[in-house]
């Protein structure tokens, strides 16, 4: 198994006719992902063509879901319209909306998150690389790739990865793959201060997933999401967990690329979070080059073999 998505998951792409959305819809198709629909208002009835595959385009998310059975959407629409795109997924009753868009106004996300309360749709992102559940084919093809992550660096296996940062996720995944250790699912939850799925949400899913044996949790300065997850891990999770926090050298009060990566006080510095990780039995990677090794150290300590 895996979490959130499987190779059978049918996905739609909102913004498939844009350059960015189209490029990544194509890469997902190449990876073997079931991209079954595109949504661009006003272009319903057209098709998205890629390497001999033809994907129908619809005007609305509801139409796309009804006609194709897609249960998940990858959102590639520009920031001013992205909040609306998420709400359209909620209204259509999708299982999962994955919002890749970077730069959505925080107020829009505050309102969207409030409107999603009590609704069955889960949001991953925004400002995230998306999710990958690797497949069994060459270079992990045959899996489900939603978003912008490079599929080929993955390998099917039993380690879960959750991160606020795209490139740091790739760094961790690549280290694992090079060492012959595969991944169950890799989830980029995004770098914004208001997002859908939290570290803790993903950790709980990995903990419940019988096919995930170990977890790498990557965080950064700002907010308290990693601390919340770490405390839960201490109380509830017996699987080996390694962690890394970026931003130890970031000056306070400056936004480090990600809207959410900003030190606001004494509690949300890298130092404070690393301390909590250590208190909670999470093996801390001293540098990003150490993430896979940190997990291996922890696994060895508690007698878990990773593959």
């Amino acid at each position, binding site marked *: 198994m895996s979490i959130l998505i499987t190779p059978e998951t049918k996905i739609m792409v909102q913004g498939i006719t844009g350059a960015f959305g189209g490029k*990544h819809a194509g*890469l997902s198709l190449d990876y073997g992902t079931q991209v079954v629909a595109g949504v661009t208002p006003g272009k319903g009835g057209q098709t998205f063509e890629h390497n001999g595959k033809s994907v129908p385009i619809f005007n609305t998310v509801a139409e796309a879901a009804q006609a194709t059975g897609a249960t998940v959407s990858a959102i590639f629409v520009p*920031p*001013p319209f992205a909040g609306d795109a998420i709400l359209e997924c909620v209204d259509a009753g999708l299982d999962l909306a994955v919002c890749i868009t970077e*730069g*959505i*106004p*925080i*107020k*829009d*996300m*505050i*309102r969207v*998150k*409030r*409107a999603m309360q009590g609704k069955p749709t889960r949001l991953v992102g925004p400002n995230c690389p998306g999710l990958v559940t690797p497949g069994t084919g060459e270079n992990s093809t045959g899996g489900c790739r939603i978003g*912008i*992550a*490079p599929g080929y*660096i993955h390998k099917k296996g039993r380690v879960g990865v959750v991160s*606020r*940062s*795209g*490139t*740091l*996720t*790739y*760094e961790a995944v*690549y280290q694992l793959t090079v060492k012959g250790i595969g991944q169950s699912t890799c989830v980029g939850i995004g*770098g914004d*201060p*208001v997002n859908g799925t939290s570290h803790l949400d993903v950790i709980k899913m990995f903990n419940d997933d019988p096919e995930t044996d170990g977890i790498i949790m*990557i965080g*950064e300065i*700002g*907010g*308290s999401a990693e601390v*919340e997850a770490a405390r839960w891990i201490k109380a509830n999770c017996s699987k080996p967990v390694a962690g*890394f926090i*970026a*931003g*130890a*050298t*970031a*000056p306070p009060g*400056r*936004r*480090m*690329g*990600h*809207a*959410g*990566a900003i030190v606001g*006080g*004494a509690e949300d510095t*890298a130092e404070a979070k690393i301390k909590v990780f250590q208190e909670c039995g999470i093996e801390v990677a*001293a*540098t*990003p*080059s150490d993430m896979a090794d940190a997990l291996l150290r922890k696994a060895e300590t508690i007698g878990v073999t990773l593959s």
Partner: protein
Amino acid sequence: MNIHEYQAKALFEKYGVPVPQGAAAKSAEEFDTALATLPEGPTMVKSQIHAGGRGKGTFTDGFKGGVKFCPSKAEAKEIAGKMLNNTLVTVQTGPAGRKVQTIYFTVASDIKKEYYLSILLDRATSHPVIVASTEGGVDIETVAHETPEKITKVFVDPAYGLADFQVRELIFALGFDKTEAKNAAKLIKSLYDCFWETDAAMIEVNPLITTPGGDVLALDAKVSFDSNALYRHPDIVALRDLNEEDPKEIEASKHDLAYIALDGNIACLVNGAGLAMSTMDIIKHFGGNPANFLDVGGGASKEKVVAAFKIILGDANVKGILVNIFGGIMDCNVIAEGVVEAVKEVGLSLPLVVRLEGNNVAAGKKTLDESGLSLVSGDSMADAAQKIVNLVA
């Protein structure tokens, strides 16, 4: 994006938040005109820079205090002359300080009591939170740490907005009398409207004051805005003061590069915010000092890499460069070509370590090898960081 106190107070007035009467001047010639709008009597002279701690700051010529009380307008004019175009160093400016290019004169208010009031995003609940305290005019982090019971927070449901009962909760917690309570209620509601409608990231009023007459005023004002929302607020964008920003950061923003200047000597050029932050961290981990944060983004072109290179080399402190790229989708060869072109264009003589990994990495490495440039290849992040630290040391 930050704005000055005088701009924030003009915004407050627009939303009906009472502030002491004031006027700004950008040159000595404007002092008289500005002061003419104020009544004769005690006047405050306030240096306008984007940093806190102004009152306790010192100018580089030894003059003390970036905020001064003056018994008369004549004295205010004289003091303003000492502050204008002088460089103010505060706990927040760093040793270089900031040049004061605007002076704000205000009527000196008669203060009965000082309070604290701020509005910002609470990340744990994803709701706006209003923070209030009876301890005004002091550092709120200290209050939160030492006497947390003196801080009241109300979380605003974005579906409804600020409710009257929540305003009452704040007012009772602050212990206002009847006249003050009426004025404070109006002020808090207006301030929340201002926060919400302008897409502010944070509004801080420290201190908020009461006067013997029962008035409630925002004596200071610190406002910052969500950069993601600026596209829908051209009036706020117009308040941006480029004098308050690092010229390299301004240049970077023109090329859509996320760049932040730091005080170390190893420059870095990285793709992705998380990787860029941890590249700084790993330089420090191996005993070096990063000169900057720089994220060229996921879709960097050759031109963008060239621009990025020029910006990091514009920092005279830089003694070496580390390029760290994990090209997931991004083509490593594009980065390599950008690096080669940039180095040739600027005639680089500093040590350069390049770590490339990912998509089309073989072609990228070939481009670098065949360029004839004297650069060092790094295998992993750790390897690359150690190499540049050793080369610079």
